[in-house]
């Protein structure tokens, strides 16, 4: 019983944290609703209707294209196990998750923009170029596909590689062709991942902000998030911003509920080892290799353009500027604090959820399922409450508060960053905690290990690697985010993404290139270094 009693200490902090997060969501809703007291929802004006329609339309198109392309790429990679540089490519495509959105946008402008590499190449070859074709729906889709197809392909590849080798051998012995193999052997194993990834991608594109803000180009291509930003920051039209925020909140809540049955959030996509034995026909081999090469070209060229332009930009002068140093220090502080808070919160939430889910712990107690569900909901709040809506809530609180604006900015940005990282963090930490429990709970309890002993002796060696992964992921996501800062950013509170956005907006391309390169290097270095330095062992080994 001593062990069981010690579990109370394991779930209480998690339950309090979950209640705190859910309470925060309710408070936000009340703040928005109270402020919206005078707004009429009886009729939605055509402009708002257009914004809502376009938001849904671009999210749907982005999802279809990202999933389709990601699936093709994963199929090609799965069946080309000996493709030279395959492991490196897979690691590169997985890194799209930690690439700062704004940096990716900058890289895409470097390739597809008016003075981008494609236009330069066409001018050099034929004397004519394509002019300005990036801004608008094309640019939005391009950036969404760039970030999401590569990320989705990693999840799909994992699903391909989870198919038992016997199934492939059986299919080969039954003389299946490539199509029959896909339809009968692969699709049944892939479809769950495809639907769950599609749901997540749709939600991410639906609430996409930085990409639409920069590549949208005109109000015709505004999404709800950008319209909220413009209403607050440019027009200071708070009633319109509130109306849009409440519409956004209602739509994302419905979407999260609708997709919850097949959305398994984001999986931990660290390893890729399995190899499929199947000798392809020559035509299929060329098709698969061609797909891998084309996607690699699509993925690598924007990163190359950032490096080339960044190196040319006179990096040394840029990094010495006081404003850059101020942005760098603020960004590093924000990212470090966000990552630490995320790690603390995810450990507390996952530990509590595990206690309610494990039959060997409190899984059989009444209300266990309800508590587990509440914790899951609190960890996935970000998907239902978009950043700009959250930002608007904080903005309204700050307006009526005596506290300094900068303090509100810190609270808002840290809250947003932590909530943004939590769904990813939960998806990585919680399954690992469950695996450890399934394997060692009975042994630990029979040995009478206390909570502290269990954590340090049994769990930490297996959690260390995923904790480092979560810290690095959260650090990079926070470092690159241009969300709340767009509402709270000013001369005294400036981060690297906000600084880069300002430079891009004022056409200081050279300086922007330098800052983009620093952000790219910082993200990749931190991610690779931290995950390598603290890499732990897998519980299945």
């Amino acid at each position, binding site marked *: 019983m001593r062990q069981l009693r010690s579990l109370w200490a394991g779930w209480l902090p998690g339950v309090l944290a979950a209640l705190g997060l859910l309470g925060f969501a309710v408070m936000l809703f009340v703040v928005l609703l109270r402020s919206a007291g005078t707004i009429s929802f009886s009729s939605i004006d055509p402009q708002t209707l257009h914004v809502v329609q376009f938001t849904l339309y671009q999210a749907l198109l982005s999802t279809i294209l990202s999933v389709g392309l990601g699936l093709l790429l994963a199929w090609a990679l799965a069946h080309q196990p000996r493709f030279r540089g395959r492991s490196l490519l897979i690691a590169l495509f997985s890194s799209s998750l930690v690439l700062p959105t704004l940096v990716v946008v900058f890289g895409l402008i470097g390739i597809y923009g008016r003075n981008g590499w494609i236009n330069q190449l066409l001018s050099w070859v034929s004397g004519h170029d394509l002019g300005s074709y990036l801004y608008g729906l094309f640019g939005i889709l391009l950036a969404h596909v760039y970030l999401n197809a590569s990320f989705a392909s990693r999840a799909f590849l994992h699903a391909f590689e989870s198919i038992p080798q*016997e199934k492939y*051998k059986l299919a080969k012995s039954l003389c299946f062709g490539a199509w029959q193999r896909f339809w009968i052997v692969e699709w049944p194993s892939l479809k769950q991942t495809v639907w769950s990834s599609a749901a997540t991608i749709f939600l991410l594109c639906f609430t996409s902000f930085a990409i639409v803000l920069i590549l949208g180009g005109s109000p015709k291509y505004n999404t709800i998030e950008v319209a909220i930003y413009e209403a607050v920051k440019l027009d200071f039209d708070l009633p319109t911003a509130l109306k849009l925020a409440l519409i956004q909140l209602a739509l994302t809540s419905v979407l999260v509920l609708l997709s919850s049955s097949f959305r398994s959030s984001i999986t931990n996509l660290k390893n890729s080892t399995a190899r499929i034995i199947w*000798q392809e026909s020559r035509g299929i081999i060329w098709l698969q290799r061609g797909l891998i090469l084309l996607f690699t070209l699509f993925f690598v060229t924007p990163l190359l353009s950032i490096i080339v332009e960044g190196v040319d930009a006179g990096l040394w002068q840029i990094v010495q500027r006081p404003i850059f140093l101020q942005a760098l220090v603020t960004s590093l502080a924000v990212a470090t604090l966000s990552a630490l808070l995320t790690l603390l919160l995810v450990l507390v939430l996952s530990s509590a959820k595990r206690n309610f889910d494990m039959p060997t712990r409190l899984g059989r107690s009444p209300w266990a399922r309800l508590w587990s569900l509440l914790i899951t909901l609190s960890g996935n709040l970000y998907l239902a409450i978009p950043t700009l809506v959250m930002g608007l809530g904080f903005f309204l609180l700050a307006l009526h508060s005596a506290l300094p604006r900068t303090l509100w900015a810190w609270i808002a940005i840290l809250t947003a960053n932590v909530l943004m990282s939590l769904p990813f963090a939960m998806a990585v930490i919680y399954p690992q905690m469950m695996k450890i429990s399934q394997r060692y709970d009975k042994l630990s309890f029979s040995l009478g290990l206390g909570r502290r002993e269990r954590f340090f002796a049994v769990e930490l060696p297996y959690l260390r690697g995923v904790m480092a992964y979560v810290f690095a992921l959260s650090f990079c996501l926070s470092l690159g985010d241009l969300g709340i800062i767009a509402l709270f950013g000013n001369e005294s509170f400036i981060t690297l993404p906000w600084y880069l956005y300002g430079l891009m907006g004022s056409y200081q391309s050279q300086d922007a290139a330098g800052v983009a390169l620093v952000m790219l290097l910082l993200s990749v270095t931190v991610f690779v270094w931290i995950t390598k330095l603290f890499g732990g062992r897998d519980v299945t080994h």
Partner: protein
Amino acid sequence: MLHIDDLTYAYKKDEPPYRYNMQVDAGEIAAVMGSSGSGKSTLLDLIAGFLQPQEGCICLDGKHLEHLPIEKRGVSILFQNHNLFEHLSVAKNIRLGRKEATDKEIADILEEVGLGGYEKRLASELSGGQQQRVALARVLLRREPILLLDEPFAGLDEQTKSQILNLVREITDRHSLHTVMVTHDPEDAKRIADRRYLMHDHRLVSQ
């Protein structure tokens, strides 16, 4: 006769290769025994064509198989698990063996393996023993001369295992199959095998 002569395979260059010699007549069952990782399943992968031997030959009635693609080797395989596609019905799983098979043929074959009337059931609804019977039904429909069994009885209870072993024996006799059975259980081998081989020190030795 299935004749395997000095068949050699090494996974890595610096490792000693596995070496196989064996014979199986039509209507015979050859059991291959040995400890885990001794190279038993590698032999089946070589016969089926999932691996290419470095040396040696695999001949069926004088015809060399080692350079033929998998689909032309005349091989049916049964694994311990994953022999069926769970989302398909029993009939659809069997028809994958020969697309032009009629409903009557499938019904007759299911009758032969003791599962008459199971055509419309989903594979996922069947027990382990029933799934192995369906897989054997597909083997019968394919009418391939070589049957490879990769420990397909390992997860079954004694009674079910005994029934399936008898069924394999019957099928091999009736359809003159060349059956190669990998097993770690000497009792299984004693019960139905005509020839017994043991993997020892990277070599297949006749017992």
